[in-house]
């Protein structure tokens, strides 16, 4: 059971990572990267690490993504 979840999430995170790196649209890429972190926090739960999972979810997928968006936004403003 856990193995199946692990495989699914593992594959999902790799796909997310691939999208993050290769998608042309930066916003999509940033969201994909946030998703990778989210999947990672699920993996941490699987590994019996709730603390890490919480941190990854709040900081890795939450704050980091937001900061990315802020910066992207600034860059876009400049390009306008």
């Amino acid at each position: 059971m856990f193995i199946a979840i692990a495989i699914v999430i593992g594959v999902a995170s790799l796909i997310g990572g691939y999208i993050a790196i290769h998608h042309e649209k930066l916003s999509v890429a940033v969201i994909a990267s946030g998703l990778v972190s989210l999947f990672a926090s699920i993996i941490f739960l699987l590994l019996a690490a709730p603390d890490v999972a919480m941190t990854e979810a709040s900081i890795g997928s939450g704050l980091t993504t937001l900061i990315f968006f802020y910066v992207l936004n600034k860059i876009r403003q400049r390009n306008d």
Partner: protein
Amino acid sequence: MIKKILIIGVLAVVGLIFFDLFNAYQGNESLSKTANYYAENGASQVGAANLVTAIVVTYRGLDTLGEVTILFLTAAIISFILKFREEDFMPNRSVRVTSELLDSAAQVIVPVIFMVGVYIFMNGHLTPGGGFQGGAVIASGVLLMIMANPNFGVSHKVIAVVESISGIAFVLIGVLGIVLAGGFLDNTLLPLGKLGDLFSAGVIPVIYTFVGLKVGAELSNIIGTISHVQNEKN
């Protein structure tokens, strides 16, 4: 193209290194020597139910101090890189009008978020979570406020004061540990209390509170700085 092939080749060897690592990894059947010690003595020595917290705050407290310092550094660097000037807070600067809905939602939700954040770091020694997670939650509250009202000036002064005081407090607690107990950041400055209580685990809750405040302030500072920076014309 040649470069891509080169990179793939290089990464293939990196993969080989990882394969070596993977081969070396045999899983675990039992805890390591150090972990075993923590499992056996953590609760009695530190008094924190959450062993991760016990390690982060006490056994490896110096790391945490370093970690807090890193965020502190980042915030400081970002603010001096981005030339955080007073003019940036001029209220008539923004042209974007945000929705009323978001604005009023923010007013309701933000205090709740803050409460959640405080809860997380106050209970760091009991449940999963702690100063960093709580700090991050608080920072997201600040973020929401900024999103709701772009003209909302993050009061730099308030943040700075919170940040400084909590930082100094952290250091002071550490030093008090030397003076009153067994060493820098010694946990037994305060009584350990009963395992599982809110007011237990020595200074862990205190430290985590300060860490939470500090991290929250630092992250808010970073976000605030980035969001307020003007497109300098130079």
